[in-house]
């Protein structure tokens, strides 16, 4: 393994300075559950790793009026062990509780999941259907971009070489909102999604019509994608099995999967159909339950 420098940054400025110094040959380290494996596997070489767990903004999680801010290095377990967060952000909690196993969840972060930019990322779909944004810091200050569009290709993001993700902002969900994430893996843990689907929807006051919906798909395109046509088909529809099935059909058309060692094109399209229907049903159930509460 190529020798690299390890810097435990204690501020955003310090982290940015190291990134500037090394350019593309430096990367940030949060839980390390992807990057360390990739380095040891020889996938790429680095000259510096910047540990951001000591950066206060990256390790904070705050639930406020405007929504939820999750520091880029906040490990998954802190998300699902927080009862208030778990109640308000069910889709995100679904993902945080199934990434890797318990040991992985005690290190891995959603920020890291975003920056790793895997097509199969479990954490990104739920952020998409929760309309989350990414807070990015660089030499000239901070900027905010939507999660939708943050990943540009497998392993690539909109981050410049001298930028890092500080946190993710998830707006406070409206009332009668529900979300869910499910993935298909052949095993029951420690696996990569053959397909992952996140869905969210908002029911109208009567609870009988869908006011708005979001659907995101993982492992069926170069990045996690938003299935906007499938989501649009649900507006004004009742939260019914029939509507969810139709949305699944449209979502399967929006997917552009490939054959690889983990699954085939046909299998992935089938799974998009099934998981879209199942996650929408669960999201609707959660939306009704939330409204009743």
């Amino acid at each position: 393994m190529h020798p690299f420098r390890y810097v435990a940054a204690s501020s955003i400025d310090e982290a940015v300075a190291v990134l500037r110094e090394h350019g593309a040959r430096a990367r940030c380290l949060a839980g390390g559950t992807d990057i360390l494996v990739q380095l040891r596997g020889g996938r790429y070489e680095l000259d510096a790793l910047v540990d951001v767990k000591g950066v206060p903004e990256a390790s904070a999680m705050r639930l406020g009026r405007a929504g939820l801010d999750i520091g880029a290095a906040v490990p998954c377990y802190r998300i699902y062990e927080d009862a208030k967060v778990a109640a308000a952000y069910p889709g995100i909690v679904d993902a945080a509780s199934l990434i890797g196993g318990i040991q992985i969840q005690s290190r891995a972060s959603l920020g890291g999941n975003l920056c790793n930019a895997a097509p199969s990322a479990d954490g990104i779909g739920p952020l998409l259907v929760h309309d989350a944004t990414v807070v990015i810091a660089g030499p000239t200050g901070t900027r905010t971009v939507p999660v939708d569009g943050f990943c540009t290709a497998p392993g690539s993001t909109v981050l410049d070489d001298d930028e890092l993700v500080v946190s993710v902002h998830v707006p406070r969900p409206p009332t009668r909102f529900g979300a869910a994430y499910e993935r298909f893996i052949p095993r029951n843990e420690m696996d990569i999604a053959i397909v992952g689907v996140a869905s969210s929807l908002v029911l109208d006051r009567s609870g009988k019509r869908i006011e708005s919906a979001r659907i995101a798909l993982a492992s069926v395109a170069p990045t996690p994608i938003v299935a906007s046509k499938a989501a649009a088909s649900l507006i004004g529809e009742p939260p019914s099995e029939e509507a969810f099935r139709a949305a699944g059909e449209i979502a399967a058309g929006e997917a552009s999967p490939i054959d690889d060692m983990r699954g085939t094109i046909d299998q992935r399209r089938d799974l998009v159909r099934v998981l879209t229907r199942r996650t929408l049903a669960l999201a609707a159930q959660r939306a009704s339950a939330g409204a009743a509460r």
Partner: protein
Amino acid sequence: MTSKTEPKRKFRVVGTRPIRHDGWDKVLGRAAYGADVKLPGLVHGAVLRSPHAHARIVKIDTAKAEKAPGVLAVMTAADMPVAASQVLDLGEEVTNATYASDRVMARAKAVYNGHPVAAVAAVDLNTALEALTLIDVVYEVLTPVVTIEQAMAPGAPLVHDDLVGDDIGERVEHTNVAEHIRYEVGDPEAGFAEASTIVELECRLSRAHQGYIEPQTATAFWSQDGKLTVWTSTQASFGQRDALAGVLMRPVSSIKVVPMEIGGGFGGKIGIYLEPLAAVLSRKCGRPVKLVMERRAVFDATGPAPGGIVRVKMGVDDKGLITAATADIRYGAGAYPGAQINPASVCVFASYRIANARVDGYDIVINLSKTSAYRAPGAPQATFATETVVDEICRRIGMDPAEFRLLNASKEGDRRVDGPAFPRIGNVEVVEAIKGSAHYRSKLGPASSPAKKRGRGMASGFWQGIGGKSTVTISVNNDGVVSLIEGSVDIGGTRASIAMQAAEVLGIAAEDVHPSVVDTDSIGHTDLTAGSRTTYATGAAAIKAAEQVVEEMKNRAALAWETDAGNVRFEDGVFSNAVAKGQRLTFKELSGKLGATGGQISTTGVVNLRGSGGGSFAAHLVDVEVDTETGKVEILRYTAAQDAGKAVHPAYVEGQMEGGAVQGIGWALNEEYVVGDDGVMQNASFLDYRMPTTLDVPTIETIIVEVPNERHPFGVRGIGETGIVPPMPAISNALRDALGVRLTELPMKPGRIMAALKAQAAS
């Protein structure tokens, strides 16, 4: 639970569940495995591997690597002697020294992806790894032979230009079929003519890796006086010594192999991989050299079980009796011959009495790593075809699968297709145990959701086990504790099971036998820990040594009591004088008097058990639930019944049965080598080579059946391997029951199940 089948002799230690002797060290992390070896002056090595599955090596330039700071030695095949052609019989693996040498370091051609082409020793691992990037290898890439069809096609590229095939005794040149064997009894064609129902299935199986957690390692020190010591994680310390002698062209006695604690083997740690490379690097730099394989290399370059194509045809008459059966077994050996087609042929019909049968086995070389033994090597793949055919027959003729097996079961005196007659076996008893189980009598119950379906399947399996040579030395200490020295590497709790057999004879507690596994210079020849032989054969050696101790102790008691040795009785751990009431000494008391009666006692028991180990049959029953929208399979309930002869340590017998079932479940559902046309494995990691996790398997319910093995003093049968044989067909049969479709290709992964359901819907 234990199913009692007949009255047996009374045991005091055998059949109990003491804490294993190596338990503390393993639980507390003190046990030293291969990678834990630390020696003065130790340096580290790394291996450069071919990225091509088939390529001529035009040139290797190591000059830059040799000059790199910190590099102590660089080697290629040019640093190894050209090994003379000779058969190396490592027990469950037989190979030729020339192939064994070529396998560990490519000479003219790289014949599998991951084939070593050079190795470096350096002051630390990172320096060694960096030095690998300085070695320049020029390859002429050749077309790889990846599948069995490709290998057997006319005009196929040849894995080895000089391979001479043996087609039932006929020499064949320019071929990838190393061997074609045939066994035949009776008249299969006439038998099929008598059949009222005939079923034939062709099954396809992926190669599957043992998946041991500890990767291969080797540390070697080649001393200036020509003595080579190798510390390694192996199942076969003596086999490794002999293989090293053959590959390095050195006298056997100049080599000492020190077996370290082993982190899983399952047959995969019999052959040599890193040992000769560490040895040559050590010779070149004069320092001890350690090599540890990366997981990627373990998948790419060590030996999994072969995949293959197995076609089985079976006919039954209107009473359900088998009239004839044939099997065509084609296994992909990998880059060198030796795909275990013989044990496959032995086992394929072993569960049934068949008067007319023929088995053809083909050992086929392809450009993938050479396969190795894996738990009942060769048997699971062949049995998959037989047991799915049997299940289809039961469905066609409307017979209960347990009844069919009882009706057609092989019994004592029946001949296997390869000739030998079975001794006393427990084939009927294991099927009866399943039939009598709570599981068998339970209702399957409704599925947990409308999208899911449930099914139940049964299958049988057999592994013959081997005997072979073992040596055990016992020394009696004056505190009544004995030390037991053995050469059998402990994989599955054999320190305990062997010590318990000695304790049984000596009338002492299992804890009062202290077992040690020692190196090849410190004990007489002992064959490998494999073939379900260790508890059986090394146990027999321990019994023999212990019986000699008892005889000598009787002499000493006679001396102490000034009586004839013939008057000394030994019962329940107590020596007594038959002619003088009240004269009695426990084993411990007499041990304290050894000094005064002629000194300490030590004995050696040597056995060489010929023929099979007596054989162990199993029958498994499984309930599955399948999500018909995703193809995901959940194992709801699993019961394994197996004949242990006599279970020495029932907990470890159960552990072996459970382990076999779990590995079989993995092979059945998800484990596979995904190999592209380029011969490169695409899923060479534990992330993508999908072995089951603890969340993927239910509690395996076990039923130990005890039909004594007439070849062992206590009736013990080796039980380590049979458990992996039935799971794959049992699950295929359960899926057939649930879904109405027959899965004949392994693994039966979700995508394949969905494709089968779609094909069913379309037809």
